[in-house]
């Protein structure tokens, strides 16, 4: 169980894992998340679901190296197993026939958009997907999303691929062109999600975002993941992770996400130092 069956580097510091988790995959729905723990001393990390292979019982998770835990996970090999893969957690994305849907993904927020785009399309919606990255090399899941959507639009910050600009540049253009939009789902870095809801606020387009705050247990027990939505404190793990984007206090969330920055840096630096030492020794020994 929890065994890594395949692993692929999608771009620098970003790996896609296919993990054996038949029971979880059977039950999981688009928009839910899992908690991974690598080993005995490991953290419990919430991760988006980047694909559900229902036929073979395989879970796809995309991990970006940002600190010690993600770095260590990204060095796991095919055949290794996570000590824990917990889930499916959270409430699935509300899927219905809205009409014209726009799915927006940025960075490692792109993979979880994939099962949601699939589900929306299956429910009879017309799905336009917009994905963005800093530069062409960092753009992931293009093939998957072009298959899952009726239309795939791309933006890069540096203009190396697709529209020069942000996902919101593309979104704004669609709206300016008079496209009728009934539902927007956005997943990505907090500034991106904030920019998307600011774009759809005036035209009053129903916009949901999937939040990924710091969590420990992921079952409602600890309250680490509290977010303010519509002036009320909600727990992203059991009340979310999807919330009405126009109601989310993104500024508070940004600050809360930085709570352990100092600790994360310390652990990451130590990890990289140890790794350097190990490599050096290996070189010396050969």
């Amino acid at each position, binding site marked *: 169980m929890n065994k890594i069956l395949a692993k692929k580097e999608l771009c620098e510091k970003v790996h896609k894992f296919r993990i054996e988790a038949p*029971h*979880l995959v059977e*039950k999981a729905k688009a928009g839910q998340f899992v908690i991974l*723990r690598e080993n005995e*001393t*490991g*953290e*419990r990390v919430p991760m988006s679901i980047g694909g559900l292979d229902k036929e073979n019982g395989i879970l796809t998770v995309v991990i970006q190296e940002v600190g*010690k*835990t993600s770095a260590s996970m990204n060095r796991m090999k095919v055949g290794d197993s996570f*000590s*824990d*893969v*917990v*889930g*499916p*957690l959270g409430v699935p994305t509300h899927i219905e026939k809205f009409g014209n849907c726009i799915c927006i993904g940025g960075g490692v927020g792109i993979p979880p958009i994939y099962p949601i785009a699939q589900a929306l399309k299956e429910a009879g919606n017309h799905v336009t997907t917009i994905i963005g990255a800093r530069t062409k090399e960092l753009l992931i899941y293009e093939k998957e999303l072009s298959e899952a959507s009726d239309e795939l639009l791309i933006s890069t910050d540096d203009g190396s691929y697709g529209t020069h600009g942000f996902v919101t540049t593309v979104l704004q253009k669609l709206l300016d062109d008079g496209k009728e939009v009934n539902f927007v789902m956005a997943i990505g870095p907090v500034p991106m999600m904030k920019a998307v809801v600011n774009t759809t606020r005036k035209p009053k387009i129903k916009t949901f975002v999937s939040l990924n705050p710091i969590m*420990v*247990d992921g*079952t*409602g*027990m*600890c*309250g*680490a993941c*509290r977010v*303010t939505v519509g002036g009320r*404190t909600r*727990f992203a793990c*059991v009340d979310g992770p999807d919330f009405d984007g126009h109601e989310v206090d993104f500024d*508070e969330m940004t*600050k*809360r996400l*930085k*709570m*352990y920055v100092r*600790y*994360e840096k*310390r*652990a990451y630096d*130590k990890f990289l130092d140890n790794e350097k030492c190990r490599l050096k020794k290996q070189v010396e020994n050969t």
Partner: protein
Amino acid sequence: MTAKKQEPISKKERLQIPRQKMPQQDAKERIKNFNEVPYGLPVELAQKEAMRCIECKKPVCIGGCPVEVDIPAFIKLIVDGDFIGAAKKIKETNALPAICGRVCPQEEQCEQVCVLAKKHTSVAIGYLERFVADYEREMGEIEIPELPPPTGKKVAIVGSGPAGLTVAADLAQMGHKVVIYEALHKAGGVLIYGIPEFRLPKSIVASEVDYLKKMGVEIHTSYVIGKLDTVDELFEMGYDAVFVGTGAGLPNFMRVEGENFNGIYSANEFLTRSNLMRAYDFPEADTPIFVGENVAVLGGGNTAMDAVRTSLRLGAKNAYIIYRRSRNEMPARIEEIHHAEEEGVQFKFLTSPVKYYGDENGWVKEMECVKYELGEPDASGRRRPVVIEGSNFIIPINTVVVAIGNSSNPLIPQTTPGLETNKWGNIVVNEKTMMSSRPGLFAGGDIVTGGATVILAAGAGKVAARAIHKYVMGIPFDEREDEEKKEEKKESVSKK
């Protein structure tokens, strides 16, 4: 350790023996480590303490125990030097003696009704329970009781805290197949994530869990019922009954302005990081925890004491307990309050926060409080705290831990159609059988009562196990029989 039978002495001589004190780690030293505070009684002191029991003809202590341990019998076995026998005697009704000996509020239970308590001091029943359980474990002589032939009945238990473990032990002992589903990655529930190492070493919980495994109980961790499988799916999987003991897993906050500033934790999160995730060992363990110079823990229960004492060990210079009522109303065990005082915790009674102030990065830096005075008794019988107008004052603070209790976790009630809950979301059960509105679905512990104690959860587990046995074996619940038992118990307590 040597076990020797003690010569009988007269009642008068017994009454002259003072209550033995348990040796413990010095307060100055212990706030630098997470090792257990009391060392336990050595053999001589344990036997001396056991000799204090005057062997009442009608022992009221048994009625004071939620799981009805035959207290005089096990104490007599200690006097006789048969410590293993004493451990077995306790285990006839309590599967978790090493845990209960440490965390039960004995002063409100068995020790409160002990006949000696009136004119002298009660027998230290908790110390003795711990002594025999530790003796048995340290001697490596934990024996698995002889199990009856399998009944062929299967019971699923959701949650591996004190309620679930008790039900599991009792049902396994009756020959039923028991499978436990635990959401976290380690079994033990609050005993693992909540109660700190210095109060309950995790190796002890692990050994009690191991004991269950040896009895054939299967345990699945990282398995969230209500998400991965629903209760209905458990029945579909062939379980004859399901017991839900998921605890009070949804922390309450005070809904005070600024409560989402960084540095403000629920007690559940703070303790889970430190205990289950071993944040005290960061960066060896990967999970961090933030403890600043000034730490305020809100609340007056055992959880608050656990959190405030943990904060000292993690480097707090000033650790405060902020409690809305006065010392007399604090629900924590007396021993925990003493330990906190010895360790330098500062108590601010009749005080409660009304607002937090943060810095530009969203970190809490100050807490505005108001003072209270005690008014008339409220529904709980405790005097109601009343705000003193204009008493507002500010304390500089870096870390806040909110330990004002929990609500019930919604995962099971939300996904179990037909399951009746009360207005707080707790599962409604028949108190005599612990069966819910759904036939075959039983519940006990904090998910039924709201935040309570380990032993009350274990007590509920015992009642549930008896009823589950009857239910799966097709024996009708005889409510009269249970009623009589309860009456008997009431009598024995009221005769104190």
